[in-house]
């Protein structure tokens, strides 16, 4: 089709689909008037039975922990996929340290102000990430958010203009291991439930006092596992794209 033909088709089909959606969505309860029995039950069960105070995290890492398992492996599959798709652009990595001076690997566009700021940021990011991962069951946040924040720490090293330092702090193999260990750990915690309790992902740890750090059974463990995986996953994806940039950008092309 020509561009015009395509748009003409959409000019008919788009409004049609919009109408279908609007007609369907019109049957929803009016905004703010929803009282789903599932949600109401969960609000009652989780704080009582599991001593978690953030009910969203409780759902995420306990009641619907199996969905989260699937989600973690979607992430894992996608990182593996990105590694597969960008693989041939990684060849030069071994030559990196030999062939060029450190100055060559400064991330272009990193100004001095940005560098200083980034160095200040790093410890803050790491602290925030650890806090988020550990307090998932108590306050907003959890392994996923923590993982990205933690990954942003090493990223700040890059913004500080030190690509090689980044590769030294977080070499490829270490990131791959982090990603894989985090994913496996989550699945393995689930197996703990199968072995020590009766069902996969069933809680088999003491519940502790509500509001305290080591409460809510296996939730903090799950949260940490997810945190590890997400940290590895995002750093891998970033460096995968940035390797293209820094390494291939100069000589292979």
């Amino acid at each position, binding site marked *: 089709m020509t561009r015009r033909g395509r748009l003409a088709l959409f000019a008919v089909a*788009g409004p049609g689909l919009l109408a279908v959606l609007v007609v369907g969505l019109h*049957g929803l309860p009016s905004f703010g008037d929803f009282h*789903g029995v599932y949600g109401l039950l969960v609000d009652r*069960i989780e704080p009582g039975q599991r001593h978690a105070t953030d009910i969203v995290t409780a759902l995420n890492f306990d*009641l619907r922990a199996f969905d989260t398992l699937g989600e973690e492996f979607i992430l894992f599959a996608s990182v593996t996929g990105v590694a597969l798709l960008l693989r*041939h652009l990684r060849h030069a990595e071994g030559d990196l340290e030999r062939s060029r001076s450190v100055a060559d690997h400064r991330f272009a566009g990193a100004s001095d102000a940005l560098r200083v700021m980034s160095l200040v940021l790093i410890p803050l990011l790491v602290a925030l990430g650890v806090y988020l991962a550990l307090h998932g069951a108590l306050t907003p946040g959890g392994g996923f958010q923590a993982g990205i924040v933690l990954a942003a720490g090493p990223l700040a090293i890059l913004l500080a203009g030190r690509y090689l330092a980044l590769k030294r702090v977080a070499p490829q193999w270490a990131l*791959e291991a982090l990603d894989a260990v985090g994913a496996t750990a989550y699945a393995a915690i689930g197996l703990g439930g199968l072995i020590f309790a009766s069902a996969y992902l069933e809680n088999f740890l003491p519940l502790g006092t509500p509001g305290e750090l080591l409460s809510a059974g296996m939730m903090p463990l799950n949260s940490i596992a997810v945190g590890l995986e997400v940290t590895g996953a995002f750093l891998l994806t970033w460096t995968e794209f940035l390797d293209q940039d820094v390494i291939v950008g100069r000589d292979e092309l």
Partner: protein
Amino acid sequence: MAVLSSLPVVVPFMLAPLLVAVGAYAPRWSEDALAMVGAVAVLVICLLLAVHAGARPFVYWMGGWRPERGVAIGIAFAIDPLGAGMAAFAAVMVLAALTYSLRYFDAVGGLFHGLMLLFLAGMAGFCLTGDLFDLVVFFELMSAVAYALTAYRIEERAPIQGAINFAVTNSIGGYAMFIAVAMLYARTGQLNMAQIGAALDGHRADPLVIVSMVLLLLGFLTKAAAVPLHFWLADAHAVAPVPVCVLFSGVMVELGIYAVARIYWVIFAGPLAGHAEALRAILVALGVTTALLGAVMCVLQRHIKRLLAFSTISHVGVFVCGVGLLGSKALAGVAAFVVGHGLTKAALFMLCGVLLHRFRTVDEYDLHGRGRELRVAGVLFAAGGLLLAAPPPFTEFQGKSLLESASSGAGFGWLTAVFAVVSALTAGAVLRVGGRVFLGWGPSEGPDPQQARPAHERVDETRDERDHTPPLMLIVPGILLTATIVLGLVPGAIPWLSGAAARFTDHRAYAAWVLHGRTVAWPRVAPSHVSAGDVIIGLLTVAAAVAVAGAGLFGRPAVARLPQGIRVGGGGAVRRLRRLHSGHIGDYIAWWTTGAGVLGGACLLALR
């Protein structure tokens, strides 16, 4: 036995990261071994589950979260014989693909094996879950893996484009499903499918229910590639590496059909009970369009993998018709047909791989006569082509005859003719290719030389030594074809499938055993008999397939003698049909939107 329920997903989940992380440092054989051990484990567990569920279907609550006051609060695996059987079938396909790739190509340090296992986990979870959102999660897992595997050969252009088209189209289908989940959750306050179904029972289907069904159908039919949501399939299947094609055509696409059946029978059969007639008409219309368009496009191809891809689309049309008949007998027919088709199609793709391995091309005319030396491959290819025509009394025929008797029972007797045309055209196209490649029959120049380009492989996906074909690459398709022949003839196989389908389609019983753990008696299924008429139609179809192949090989002089008006008109129609499949993602999504609007509009108008 129920204690094993989570393992078909968890075992691959434990192994895949290991493969990915250490794959770069471990020897190839260890990766193969680990991946195959995983696939075998999943296969064995799924078979055990299927047998166990055959006696009594059961529920497994993840995390031990049983329903609280009759309300499901956790995620359930609801395991019935058909679902577990489908998961076992997926494991068989993965195992076959892994075995075939032992000798087929160099894997990139564990990534390929890891992704194959994740694919298996996604498919198994998709088959076993009883939770609507969990179903979507596994759908997305399958998708993410499949996008990456499609573009495995990044050195080529076509795989990149195919993967982009695949990913964009299927992602949009996925988003439609998210909205459907939200709508059904808003209506029922539930995510467990049985519970959603129970909550909808006894209410009239209002626009919200209908649109949520349409959105779910859009997601699953995008994966299953029903017209006009199908454009991505031919692109992706034509370019993915052969072991991946085996999974795509053999089982992934069929899972879309499986999910359509699942959500209809569990969720919508209650509220739409009064509208079964209208819904049947809509789905059958969709199926027939898909079947015929796929068959015609199949005949027009000279790129062999693309030809097989369109044949898959055509068969998807048949399956959509079968599920759309909304009866247990038709569903049993679809199930048998899916198994037979999957095994045959997988074998045919593997034989394509043999050609690719030897000659670096899968262009029918390029390969003219060059397959003469490959006797075994030729025989297998011909057998596969014939089996695609569903000859009596093998597996596909068993499925097809169930389908046909179900369609005449539902007043759609004419579907028999459609099925026959589809089988004859798609099998005829495959036989034509076989005749040209392995026997050197017919002209060696294609009618349209421009079409040849994309079939060449600049860099090939196979391992290097190409002077002879590794025996394993012939043994695996041989086994698959033998299985196609044998499975349908195993005494008790078809009755078991009929029973499983009857169980699958019992809306009320499903809710009873999932939510209340009640034992439900096996439904009695009248034994189906293959009539003499079915056998005659089957044989005629095979004859027609051979005739189509003959016409494709030797018919060009006859076409040249046709009156010019017909030739020009026909040529114009063909060109227009071809031009629709432009490879342009914008076109595809414009058609997707059109399909969504039409399906939604038709359902809203007809089902009230």
